[in-house]
């Protein structure tokens, strides 16, 4: 099926997926590009609304200055900290290599 580029291209989908560290198959890229264009097309509806001078809702509540005291609380028991790690080495989490 031919894709009409309206809002987002396949290359942009690839780039954004990279930013999100999500590997996509070729089929997924095609499908998502199409679906995203449909969805973004609908989201354009927002442009109908004039929001000039309207402040964004940063927090729906008007809470400010919620703090805790600088007091030490117990940390996790050592065995629990690493219990869910797919890979560990001694007391360390094992992450993949950097380069």
């Amino acid at each position: 099926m031919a894709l009409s580029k309206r809002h987002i291209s396949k290359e942009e989908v690839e780039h954004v997926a990279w930013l999100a560290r999500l590997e996509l198959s070729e089929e997924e890229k095609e499908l998502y590009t199409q679906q995203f264009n449909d969805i973004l097309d609908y989201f354009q509806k927002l442009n109908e609304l004039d929001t000039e001078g309207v402040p964004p809702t940063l927090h729906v509540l008007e809470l400010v200055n919620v703090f805790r005291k600088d007091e030490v609380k117990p940390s996790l028991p050592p065995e629990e900290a690493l219990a869910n790690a797919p890979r560990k080495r001694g007391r360390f989490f094992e992450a993949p290599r950097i380069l």
Partner: protein
Amino acid sequence: MEPYKLGAWEISQKIRNRELTARECIVSFLSRIDSLEPKVKAYVSVLREAVLKKAEKIDKKVKRGERVGMLAGVAVAVKDNICTKGVKTTCASKILENFVPPYDATVVERIEAEDGIVIGKTNMDEFAMGSSTETSYFGPTRNPWDLSRVPGGSSGGSAAAVSAQEAPLALGSDTGGSIRCPASFCGVVGLKPTYGLVSRYGLIAYANSLEQIGPLARGTYDCALLLSVIGGYDERDSTSVNRAPRDYTRSLGKDLRGLKVGVLRELIGLGTDEAVVKAVLECASKLEEMGALCQEISLPVLSYALPAYYLIAMSEASSNLARYDGVRYGYRTEVDLDWNQVFSKSRREGFGAEVKRRIILGTYALSAGYYDRFFLKSLKVATLIKRSFEKAFQQVDVLLAPTMPLLPFRLGEKIDNPLALYMCDVDTVPVNLAGLPAVSFPCGFHQGLPIGAQVIAPPFREDLALQVSFAYEQAAAFKGRTPTL
């Protein structure tokens, strides 16, 4: 009567009065679960051994004449995005399939402090992203009223469990309607609290600024009871509001005389199923009969709520779900490559299609160049929506609207069309953007399928919403109807 047929309040009363033991009750629910789960599939996990031990403890307390809590011996089904210490909490995702939290969510602690018993973890849309419970990694839950149909979502397992009498109470979470939608589809009562009333500590985030944990039950009284237990200030959640604890069962039974109810025109408008419109309007007349003063209210800006909601939710989700990289917990791909590739592959293999869709769209909406057009714009629309509700509440006490614009649909009917599925949330999302409380309650049936109406109240006026739901429920012709399974 079999204990599983009882409501939560009745169960705890009977246990307290020694008419029943907690053990008997739990056993009754476990056998109900055993017989129905193959059909309904409401649970992801059932805590068979642990619950019996807890029940016996409560029975001992009663025997010794010690004080027992408000939920003594009551089984509570907990949505699987709410952390339970030592019990797998999966968000119905492969990526968290084996995740065992080392801590309890605040709501779980509070339920246990009142001697409630977490009986199992319920199925849901993966990471609460969906309105049908079909995106679960463990497969869909069925609607107890018609097993070929969806239970709604994302708290579909919780609603189905309560509806099918596999638990008297359940916890769900509502980001854009995820409690009210399945409550509506499964014919039960579900409440989305005011943002900040219930602690989110231990709720695995989908969209932090929008979501709340809330109760589901077959009746309003039980719903109010569970809300009284879980609500209230928690210092571990910075967005928790410091207010005096409240017993929401106390305002129930007040009559509706003089209560001003606004019927939301936009939400019964175009695109809403006729049967739904009819049921909601009949509900309004019924409320009028009971003394309420109904009037139509128009809030045109609500028609912009859906895109604003999705953009905010997806944006926050893209950030919240970044932590699943297979280093500290969760699924990790087998291959040994550099970190970029291992992260990308783990996430590809661990997340389902809808989750990926939302992560990518959310990343897009936040990325340089689109931030203002999508994310910031949505936050401004949220302000307009909040303001329009504030204006409406200067005229009326509560608002009435359909919960869902359609009846429970068939499994597989919409799953391939994401946008069509998103559209189902059109009536539920405005409330989340404005941080308001809303209760969905059954307001009728059409061809054997339940229809839900929602009452929306001003911030922290859950009592008003519950009062309307309770009053209607007492007068409803279908009171006490349950699905045949």
